[in-house]
């Protein structure tokens, strides 16, 4: 390890780092702006200046940028000396030339890296007397607010947006001190990662628009460690609450999972917590059909008496916690519990769980995914089904560049240099999907194929790797050869697939490829996506023992079910409307626990208001197989209760055996872990409620939390007693110790002098490394002995028909997911359900983009708007899965359907976002165009 001397003191530092990283890792405060641990160095802000001396005799030294200078053994440096300090202060003073003095009204105020750095360098008096440059702001859509005057031109935004996330519609415009970061013209930012600009920007240029519209200072937010419910990736979040409203979601750093970044579905979709259609009180249906709110106790005893009256069955949910599902299953009994997924979906997730625990391949964390040097994606449109995973794949594609850099002895953090060196060369990424993917720009090759053909492609690659050959591939055989040899040549190949196409052969083919690679002694990764935040958890719980949805419907039809309890699940999203109607018609009473109004809840006899993820604790298991805990950010209002609590109390009211030992969360979890071998690890996901941080609880409120009394001043000026959290080591107060705890208990990050999210580096063992207490979550699934591949399962090739089309699901990052659609900002972006058709089929029907088309599935008819997309596989037609109006199409996935032009279709307005203004002038760079000196 090299030794460096900073201000006379010797330090051992890690090789291959730059001086800025080295300083931060040593706990020294060196200010910076443009450098980012995930994005490396470019040397634009010049803030991280240090003085480097040539040798002991050299007393003058010269200024170097910490982020651009590698550590070298024996280097002599000064951080504190006047030369460097004065220069750093001058950089801040320069940045303040054009920066408005608007901290009091700036959304970034109080968590602003520029504020922190200004204080850190000690700059105070401004000498500049000229005018400030001003800019026109742009409308960037419902998620992001733009305030260009605050820009300090650190280039972080475009580096994240373009270089890291592959976006193209944000750029640095103009030059000299007129540099402008924006779009070509006003309009919605197209990247599904745009929300990260809020955190990446060190000032208040890009801010969280929903937060700005319903504003609170960071120091007034109460936060808790949480897990995103947007998809099954399991990103770690830190939601912030005030006045009982969820104000925003911030990234919670987990090196293994989401690192520094979230997708916009996760960041902005959680707003459903504040929805108008939240259920606040228990309700019971009256004879006249209306609901009457009733007291929680009454509701419980009513449910109890229903349960005592006859046979009870329960339907769990892939979006409810492991604990709630467990309690429901225990309440109704294994054989009366259904996982809550359709049979097809359940079987697929089961297949994934089995595959991951039998194959010898590792189910990788996103961090591991980023280290893959060849990728084959089979069927899963990850940009829409697991967006954060797609962002990780973008980084793995850059391993080619990293390799080239290493060969030239460039340090991995020399970001610009590496990009210039590699230009558009990527590690091989191959994509087979039913339509074009947003990862197209990094793909070595991509094909659109019908699902069965995707599986065939996978099996063929597997065969090729093992030296045999799958016949009948036609024009794909060259591609198969290319893929096979690229995977074989890789050090760490990764195969990505998942359940979204609802095709088990696709998943099996992915397993076949990894097994073939493993036989070649390859260190192979297999990442399989599943649909929802706890699809994996409920599947591991069920273990294949539960009732299938159809069997349950069947037994209802036999009259074997009197009361059906549905946990956080809109059954109408799982099965065709008629099927659900029939099921509900065949039972006597429907009891529903849910947080938001939906069709199933509306059909219930008795409804119990469930707390959302933000008001309850629980465990989710991600598609990786990682169990992670989330905690209530705030106390549920009114009669809302966590589902596990409702069920626990119900069991107690019913006097069921053992339920007296299930009153607390930890007890539920422990019992579940004891009883279900596949879930035995969940207790290790986070410490239990007895954990104390040096004797203290962990605060949800930051030390600067203010105005607690003022909130209720109109009611009483006395400070109310803070709620007590008996279920976790967290407290609903600012008292306690928020430093040094395990990362699963990090409510927020703050460190003296570091008020922005950049403070996270104070909690990491090194910049961009693990949180000191370890990455949160525990992996429940470990590789097995090797999966058996049935060679017989290779499906037949798909032959397009002249009349009918194969129905395939198409996913939308904004729209396909049930809960995030209830967030107004996401709803604005998601638009209506669509039918995705190739132009030749559109032409046959004589319709155009925006016209209506009738799809005939299984006798029922659905009318949808047409979107022409020639990237969809030949012979296939797609529909936007999960969007209202498409429920009855789900059952038709994989079958042939016929289309017909819809008469009397009212075309909707063109897909412009409400607030888009096509007449808005361009950014004020225009004022400068072609007019130097003015």
């Amino acid at each position, binding site marked *: 390890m090299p030794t460096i001397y900073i201000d006379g003191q010797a330090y051992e530092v890690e090789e291959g780092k730059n001086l800025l990283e080295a300083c931060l890792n040593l706990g020294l405060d060196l200010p910076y702006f443009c450098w980012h641990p995930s994005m490396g160095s*470019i*040397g*634009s*802000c*010049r*803030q991280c*200046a240090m003085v480097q001396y040539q040798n002991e005799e050299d007393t003058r030294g*010269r*200024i*170097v*940028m910490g982020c*651009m200078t590698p550590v070298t053994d024996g280097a002599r440096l000064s951080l504190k000396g006047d030369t460097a300090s*004065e*220069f750093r202060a*001058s*950089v801040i003073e*320069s*940045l303040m*030339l*054009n920066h408005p003095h608007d901290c009091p009204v700036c959304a970034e105020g109080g968590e602003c890296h520029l504020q922190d750095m200004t204080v850190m360098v000690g700059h105070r008096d401004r*000498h*500049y*007397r*000229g005018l400030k440059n001003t800019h026109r702001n742009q409308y960037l859509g419902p998620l992001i607010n733009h305030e260009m005057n605050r820009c*300090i*031109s650190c*280039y972080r935004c475009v580096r994240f947006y373009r270089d890291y996330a592959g976006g193209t519609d944000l750029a*640095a415009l*103009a*030059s*000299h*001190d*007129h*540099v402008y970061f924006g779009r070509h013209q006003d309009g919605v930012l197209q990247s599904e990662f745009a929300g990260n600009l809020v955190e990446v920007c060190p000032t208040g240029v890009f801010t969280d628009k929903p937060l700005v519209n319903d504003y609170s200072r960071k120091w007034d937010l109460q936060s808790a460690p949480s897990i995103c419910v947007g998809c099954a990736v399991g990103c770690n979040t830190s939601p912030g609450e005030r006045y009982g409203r969820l104000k925003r979601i911030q990234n919670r750093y987990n090196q293994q999972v989401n690192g520094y970044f979230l997708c916009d579905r996760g960041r902005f979709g959680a707003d459903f917590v504040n929805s108008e259609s939240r259920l606040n009180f228990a309700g019971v249906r009256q004879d006249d059909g209306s609901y009457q709110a009733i007291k929680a106790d009454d509701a419980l005893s009513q449910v109890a008496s229903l349960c005592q009256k006859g046979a009870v069955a329960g339907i769990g949910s892939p979006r409810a916690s492991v604990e709630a599902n467990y309690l429901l299953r225990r309440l109704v009994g294994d054989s009366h519990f259904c996982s809550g997924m359709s049979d097809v979906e359940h079987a697929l997730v089961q297949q994934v769980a089995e595959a991951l625990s039998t194959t010898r391949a590792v189910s990788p964390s996103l961090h591991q995914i980023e280290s893959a040097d060849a990728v084959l994606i089979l069927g899963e449109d990850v940009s829409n089904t697991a967006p954060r995973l797609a962002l990780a794949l973008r980084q793995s594609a850059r391993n080619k560049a990293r390799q080239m850099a290493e060969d*030239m002895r*460039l340090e991995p953090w*020399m970001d*610009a*240099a590496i990009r*210039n*060196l*590699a*230009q558009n060369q990527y590690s091989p990424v191959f994509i087979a999907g039913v339509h074009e993917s947003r990862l197209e720009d990094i793909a070595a090759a991509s094909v659109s194929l019908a699902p069965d053909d995707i599986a065939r492609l996978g099996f063929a690659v597997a065969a090729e790797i093992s030296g045999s050959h799958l016949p009948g591939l036609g024009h794909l055989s060259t591609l198969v050869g290319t893929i096979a040899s690229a995977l074989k040549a890789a050090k760490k190949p990764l195969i990505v697939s998942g359940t979204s196409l609802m095709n088990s052969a696709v998943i099996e083919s992915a397993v076949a490829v990894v097994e073939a690679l493993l036989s070649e002694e390859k260190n192979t990764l297999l990442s399989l996506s599943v649909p929802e935040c706890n699809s994996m958890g409920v599947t591991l719980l069920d273990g294949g023992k539960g009732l299938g949805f159809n069997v349950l419907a069947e037994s209802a039809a036999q009259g074997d079910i009197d009361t059906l309890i549905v946990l956080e699940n809109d059954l109408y999203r799982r099965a065709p409307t008629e099927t659900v109607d029939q099921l509900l018609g065949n039972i006597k009473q429907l009891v529903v626990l849910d947080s938001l109004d939906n069709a199933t809840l509306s059909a219930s006899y008795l409804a119990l208001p469930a707390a959302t993820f933000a008001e309850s604790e629980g465990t989710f298991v991600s598609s990786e197989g990682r169990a992670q805990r989330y905690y209530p950010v705030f106390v549920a209002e009114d009669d809302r209760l966590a589902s596990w609590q409702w069920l626990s109390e119900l069991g107690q009211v019913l006097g069921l055996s053992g339920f007296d030992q299930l009153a607390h969360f930890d007890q539920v979890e422990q019992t579940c872990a004891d009883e279900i071998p596949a879930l035995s690890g969940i207790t290790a996901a986070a410490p239990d409620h007895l954990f104390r941080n040096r004797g203290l609880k962990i605060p949800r409120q930051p030390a600067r939390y203010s105005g607690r009394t003022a909130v209720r001043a109109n009611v009483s000026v006395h400070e109310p007693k803070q709620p007590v959290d008996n279920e976790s080591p967290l407290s609903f107060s600012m008292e306690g110790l928020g430093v040094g705890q395990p990362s699963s208990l990090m409510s927020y990050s703050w460190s003296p002098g570091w008020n922005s999210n950049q403070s996270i580096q104070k909690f990491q063992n090194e910049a961009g490394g693990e949180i000191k207490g370890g990455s949160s979550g525990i992996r429940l699934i470990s590789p097995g002995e090797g999966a058996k591949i049935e060679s017989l399962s290779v499906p037949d090739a798909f032959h397009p028909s002249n009349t009918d089309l194969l129905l395939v699901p198409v996913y939308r990052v904004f729209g396909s997911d049930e809960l995030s659609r209830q967030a107004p900002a996401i709803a604005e972006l998601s638009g209506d359900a669509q039918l995705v058709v190739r132009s030749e089929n559109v032409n046959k029907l004589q319709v155009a983009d925006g016209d209506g088309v009738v799809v005939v599935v299984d006798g029922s008819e659905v009318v949808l708007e047409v979107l022409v997309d020639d990237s969809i596989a030949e012979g296939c037609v797609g529909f936007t899965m999960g969007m209202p109006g498409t429920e009855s199409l789900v059952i038709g996935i994989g079958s042939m359907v016929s289309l017909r032009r819809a008469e009397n279709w009212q075309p909707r307005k063109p897909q412009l976002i409400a607030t888009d203004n096509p007449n808005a002038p361009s950014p004020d760079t225009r004022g400068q165009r072609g007019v*130097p*000196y003015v």
Partner: protein
Amino acid sequence: MENSLREKVLTRNIGPDLVPADMESYEANGGYKALHKVMSGMSPNDCLEVIKASNLRGRGGAGFPTGMKWSFVPMGDKCSPGHKYLVCNADEMEPGTFKDRLLMECDPHQLIEGMILAAYTIQADRSYIFIRGEYLVAIERLEQALADCYKRGYLGNNILGSGYDLEMHVHTSAGRYICGEETALINALEGKRANPRAKPPFPQVSGLWGRPTIVNNVETLCNISHIIDKGAEWFQSLGIGEDSGTKMFGASGHVKNPGCWELPMGTPIREILEKYAGGMADGRKLKGFLPGGGSTDFLVEEHLDLPMDYGSIGSAGSRMGTGTMIILDDKTCPVGMVLNLLRFFAHESCGFCTPCREGLPWTRQVLEDIESGRGRKEDLETLVRQVKYIGAIGNTHCALAPGAMEPLQSALKYFQSDFDAHVEQGCCPYTQGERV
């Protein structure tokens, strides 16, 4: 031109009438002899050795030894497969610089021959002339000359039967001083915003499209064919002092005979100013001068007997830069002159790094205040601070900003009283506030 001892090398085809040399007249005067010589038997390494031995230093401003620069290009097996590039830097936007234009307009083949030889030496297969968009005449003549070369087999595949292939293109810039900085130039050639790149890696190993690239100034490249033709010793003998060869020197401002002359390296400044530029214009006295373009430090009367070579000018506290001098006379306001330059540099900042992007406009603002009589005493301190923070190489991402500070820092040294007078009198003593 009266100097009979002086051998014309770069300008031997340039007569007083400025008629451009076409292929015929260029060849008639010994042109493409060096090319034939190389293609019929000199190896790339032979060429490199000659250039190294000649001690040719880059004429683009920094004076880096050309042979050494070329020797960093990976050759043979050490180079990964792919293109290599030679780029001629013909961006000439340094204020007060007007030498490359002349060389290109009047003798385009001399540049092209030099480029072919340079490209051959580093085994580049593609080459570009990156030229200012405003140089329309030069562009047209270079295009014509290139076409003639392709016709003759001097460019294209299998040049003169040697098996060596080279493409050459003219790229016209869309206008930006920073494009002259070699890594910014490379970004411009890639169709990008011309922000300079961080070094390392140096372009010699990773430049245009990530491939090994050499960027040389027009004048540097114009020397190559002569050195190959007549040898390193001959070239060394051309210079008077330490440095080899001849150099294009110029003078602009209020001298009797502004212009550009080819003279031996090391010609004394006084000789250039008095003999060639004809001395100061009537009624004007010399106050100071920038020896090599707008980003060099002022020198004054006491430096007139220095020889124009890299070392001498450097030890006097300035840089030889491009060798084209800008003369400040006693009737012109030094503050105004520095302000003019700062306006230019602030506008031409690429906007990438903070000290330059923000610091130069700030400096300009302060100078505007001073020049227009709104200056305060503390503004002078601000200027000193700015020079300190922006002026040091390494404080900024590239050399533009330090260059921009050079005239200011030396003006503060030599013309301090002028700055004071502006502040004290509340106006420009030279124009009494008329000019600004």
